[in-house]
């Protein structure tokens, strides 16, 4: 399958290892991954902060960059949800664009659901001998509806010790600009998430979105917990012999 990688501006700019890991996993499974260089930001930060016009300006570029792909994969359920839920709304005034967006939206997938639901794969040949806990991000759960897919992938990782995160489905408090507009509540939410992570005695906190990981990881690092964060893609990309270096990537 020819797959377009919608890497997202955050991962592109700050967490390139996640993007590389997505490429590694999909190529290992025999798929052709391309990175259309015409892509930029999906506009979610603008949209969610109330700058709707600025967000709408991002839609045509996305439609041009990804129009041709059989599947579009993103390592951010949040940005994926922006495209799936709100691009049709933003494109509405322009009939041609709305048609392009409508055709494209069903092909946008979160990495976990692309693997499990579209490609029918759970075992991706990964090896990661560490104690890991998984945080299901809000938008992966409630907007992209990834369900059990990430757990099914993680359970098949060789050597992994996967432990349940208490109160997993409660938000970490990131919320994009919420984290700076309401810093006290955001930090209070993050503190509780960190406490839950600490309860698991995991070495690694895994999630399917670099934005939430940047938030929780920022607190884990500030508190010197020694817990590191990794994107799901990085764990799935880790194989015997590379697990240690992948682990140190973020």
């Amino acid at each position, binding site marked *: 399958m020819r797959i377009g990688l919608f*890497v997202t*501006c955050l*991962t*592109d*700019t*700050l*967490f*390139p*290892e*996640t*993007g590389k890991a997505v490429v590694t996993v999909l190529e290992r499974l025999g798929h052709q991954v391309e*990175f*259309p*260089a*015409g*892509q*930029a*930001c999906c*506009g979610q*930060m*603008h*949209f*969610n*902060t*109330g*700058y709707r016009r600025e967000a709408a*300006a*991002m839609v045509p*570029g996305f439609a*041009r*960059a990804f129009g041709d792909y059989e599947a579009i994969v993103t390592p951010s359920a949040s940005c994926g949800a922006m495209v799936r839920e709100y691009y049709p709304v933003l494109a509405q005034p322009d009939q041609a664009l709305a048609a392009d967006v409508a055709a494209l939206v069903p092909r946008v997938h979160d990495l976990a659901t692309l693997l499990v639901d579209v490609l029918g794969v759970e075992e991706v040949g990964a090896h990661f001998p560490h104690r890991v806990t998984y945080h299901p991000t*809000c938008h992966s*759960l*409630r*907007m992209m509806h990834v369900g059990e897919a990430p757990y099914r992938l993680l359970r098949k990782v060789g050597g992994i010790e996967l432990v349940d995160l208490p109160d997993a489905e*409660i*938000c970490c*408090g990131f*919320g*994009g*600009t*919420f*984290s*700076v*507009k*309401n*810093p*006290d*509540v*955001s*930090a*209070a*939410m*993050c503190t509780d998430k960190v406490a839950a992570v600490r309860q698991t005695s995991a070495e690694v906190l895994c999630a399917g979105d670099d934005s939430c990981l*940047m*938030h929780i990881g*920022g*607190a884990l*690092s*500030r508190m010197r917990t020694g817990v590191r964060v990794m994107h799901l893609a990085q764990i799935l990309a880790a194989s015997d012999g590379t697990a240690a270096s992948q682990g140190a990537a973020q």
Partner: protein
Amino acid sequence: MTTRARAGLPAGPPPGSMPTYLGMPAFPDAARKAVADSQLRRNLTHATTAIRVKRAGAIGELGDFQELRAAAKAIKDHALAHLDTYLARFEDNVTRAGGHVHWARDADEANAIVRRLVWQAGADKAVKVKSMATQETGLNEALAEVGIRVTETDLAELIVQLGHDRPSHILVPAIHKNRSEIREIFRREMPDAPPGLTDDPPELAAAARRHLRDRFLTATVGISGANFAIADTGSLVVVESEGNGRMCLTLPQTLISVVGIEKILPSWRDLEVFLALLPRSSTAERMNPYTTIWSGAAPGDGPQDVHVVLIDNGRTATLADRTGRQALRCIRCSACLNVCPVYERAGGHAYGSPYPGPIGAIISPQLRGAGSPVDASLPFASSLCGACYEVCPVAINIPEALVYLRSQSPKHRAERAAFSAAASVLGSPRLLAAAQRAAGAGRFLVGRKGRIRRLPPPLSAWTDTRDAPQPPAESFRSWWARTRQPAASDETSRAGQEAQ
């Protein structure tokens, strides 16, 4: 200037007002204090966690929650789209059944009508069933100004009233108080509190019961709201747990109910759906203990002088808004408050309105307009996690409404400039690549060992509590161009320009 005017929309109907909530601070400021209040945090976590688990169980028992939810949404949307018809029908049927219907545009008009009705009844006191509409209008305060004394009879509302406090939850107004704090309030403010009162909940409830008994028996005026108003039969419905409502609704000679115009349901049969959803969503009960339904006045049985005050107070303005109007479907169950991680930490008072939590964040700025600091800040008081939408029994897409209201809210000039600049960079592959190269080159200026401990304002709001990641030497984009594309950098910039 109203939100609509600011957004360049034609001026619609006027927003309403909530007179007792004037001058509230912006949400982040109020929340900062709440987050630091250890007692409040403990009380809220304890209470919301318990009810969250119970609600999940009660809803889980239903095999057809999603179908019921879809039906409730459809019924409410239909009623709201035909309010003109159903309100008129409701008025006709109430009048035919011997009741009286009054119309109030806003809080002041509603309060004036109730004041006049109490005077006409020759009373200087009244007993009251828990009611959100009268919290909204500040009825107790308005009546107190003219010497009419109102007693709240719902246990939690009584606690709030005796404590000279404000409600902090729609269903459990005293959720911010624990039992020892309640004991202190009773000992201080309740003259007939038994000596040696402990903080044992049954003892506290018994004290309130004794305190209220005489008031129920001597009251000549009862005041209520309503959960539903049924057009076909002219009936009002009050759903409650304690039985105080039944006393207020049946014992006094005069009954005055203040009801938002969005409470209308077309027909009696529609109740089936809502009486299945409301108790499970709010108190996590399969069925609430008391449901009182009355249609006008029944000769020789219950109140003989029955009034309904239908209040707009910003609802018509809300209805005029395509996205925002879904908030009017709300049946005040509180499920969204109980699952909200922001509410759990900030508490109800931070929302500066009788309607706290996620639903309050979309209702208050619509009913009142976004002119005050608190109303301007409310749409931003959410991490958009979506837990509220998931549990809402009438499927109000609260995150969607929040984001929409954010787009309508006034922006600071500096923020607007920053977002506009960011949009130019983030929207252009070429400029984004350039910014990434600059960040990669300057990475050692801001961070060490892969993290940044401190950034200047406004980003200090992040680094006050969290490290920030140091930009990598190479972005994904340039890695791809370097390793995957022979004619690398050229193609990146060509594609970039194409996308301009």
